[in-house]
């Protein structure tokens, strides 16, 4: 869902032209009938751009999964270690709470909730769109051209490139911590709070994924700058795992108003925990994550289109 929305922006233009009835003006139409290439007359796609992207993504990701499965032993090992790597990431928090009772006024269960929501969102975004940060290599060595020659949306192809199922380990770990936090938490649950949680995880995923697409878009211009995206994705994830109270207020305001990562988990989670929003942010901000996610999608989509346009005019 997340990727599909942005992929849509890519192929929308093409789709419009497709349905503009150009086939009737095609001077080759008669010849084609002769040569038996009739199936092309049915090429008008019954699929929308979103469905098309999702289909492409599944096809390419499927091929990568099959490729991975040819090295079964190695895959099993990577899946386990991927889970362990992220597990040890959480061990750090456990170790901290072995030494202290609270961080910035937040107890263990509360920090675990922050960690679980951000971690799950980031995990899903990383699983589905994480390959985008390796696109720079494709641009540099020219293999991106091969993708552009196929009748399929580029973003879906690039996002599914080198799809690594092992990254599911991170999603599993995030969910585990989230469930743990929910079991430990002593919160007065209301229907609104219950509803807010899945919405938060979904919106958070979209926001992280948007940042990844935005970062990938810059690779069309600067192929070596991939690491900057890491500071917002991996860095953002680390930031969101801790309570906002421990950070400088300028930094907190930055992730609310500039790079809206605070909407991934902080603001909704603070509402669930019954704590005030940080840095003078109004309380209703906890509920606008889906809106923020939609805006992020739009921005990322525009950046991606600008990136492709630049690539197609400079070919670099």
């Amino acid at each position, binding site marked *: 869902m997340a990727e599909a929305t942005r992929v849509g922006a890519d192929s929308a233009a093409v789709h419009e032209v497709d349905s503009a009835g150009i086939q009737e003006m095609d001077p080759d139409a008669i010849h084609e009938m002769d040569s038996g290439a009739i199936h092309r007359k049915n090429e008008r796609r019954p699929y929308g751009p979103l469905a098309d992207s999702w289909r492409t993504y599944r096809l390419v990701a499927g091929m990568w999964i099959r490729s991975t499965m040819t090295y079964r*032993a*190695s895959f*099993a090992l990577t899946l386990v270690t991927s889970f362990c790597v992220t597990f040890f990431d959480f061990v750090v928090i456990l170790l*901290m709470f072995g*030494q202290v009772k609270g961080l910035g006024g937040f107890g263990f269960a509360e920090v675990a909730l922050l960690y679980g929501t951000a971690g799950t969102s980031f995990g899903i975004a990383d699983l589905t769109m994480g390959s985008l940060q390796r696109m720079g290599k494709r641009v540099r060595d020219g293999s991106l051209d091969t993708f552009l020659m196929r009748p399929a949306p580029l973003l879906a192809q690039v996002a599914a490139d080198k799809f690594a199922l*092992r990254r599911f380990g991170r999603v599993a770990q995030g969910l585990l911590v989230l469930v743990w936090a929910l079991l430990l938490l002593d919160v007065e649950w209301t229907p609104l709070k219950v509803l807010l949680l899945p919405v938060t995880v979904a919106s958070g995923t979209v926001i992280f994924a948007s940042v990844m697409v935005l970062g990938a878009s810059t690779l069309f211009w600067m192929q070596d700058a991939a*690491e900057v995206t890491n500071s917002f994705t991996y860095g953002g994830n*680390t930031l969101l795992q801790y309570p906002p109270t*421990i950070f400088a207020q300028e930094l907190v305001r930055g992730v609310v108003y500039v790079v809206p990562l605070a909407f991934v988990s902080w603001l909704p989670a603070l509402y669930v925990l019954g704590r005030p929003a940080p840095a003078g942010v109004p309380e209703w901000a906890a509920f606008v994550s889906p809106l923020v996610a939609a805006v992020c999608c739009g921005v990322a989509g525009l950046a991606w289109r600008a990136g492709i346009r630049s690539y197609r005019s400079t070919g670099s």
Partner: protein
Amino acid sequence: MLRLYATVAAGGFRRHATYRVATAAGVFTNTVFGFVLSYTYIALWDERPQLGGYSIDDALAYVWIGQALITVCGMMGGGFEDELIERIRTGDIAVDLYRPADLQAWWFSAHAGRSAYQLLGRGVVPMAVGALAFHFTLPSGPGGWIAFLVAVALGSTVGFAIWYLVAMSAFWLLDGQGVVQVAWLGGLFFSGMLLPLNVFPGALGEVARMLPWASLLQVPADVYLGKYVGWELAGAYAFQGCWALVLFGAGRAAQAAATRKVVVQGG
């Protein structure tokens, strides 16, 4: 022969020096992570001053040393193993093995050049930014800095030896990603990159401080912070040196076995 390796090292330095954008991007990322970690450490040491024998100033210095040394000591990957694994996977490695130069020495030279560049290009700026934004401990005098640099050089050597050994595994496991992940886990967690090893409790801490990954960050940071006096400093160096020797030896053994395998299979 030494001239050859010096040339390779210089090449490694220059090759990475051409990636200006990548360096700038790396500095930016290291700085961002430095800020995030600094605030979490401040919160932690606020609750427990003198945690792990560190003052808050020590802890903050530790954060920024860690950011500066990530690529130098290879905490999150040595930066060369992907290329080496790819050469093994595609069979190009056979060409390298027939070269008159020693494979391990060749790659170590390139690594040395690269690390020197990373220390200057990616280490100095985050340290300086961190020092401006937060007040943290600085070594006492030039002697402290020199002792620190020696520990960094040894740490970087251990880092190379670990990743070289990891790459060698690709001769047997066609897809080396699993082993890379395990090494990554070790580098990230047991180097003290996420939390200093002296904050680790009980047996976990004792084991962690004995593992080779402690050479990458914990030992250099403690040298920087002046935690070793007199003969203790020699002991710290010896700890790093021993791991370097053991891992280099293991790498050589793996390389010899792999060479025999490649020769038998005819590439």
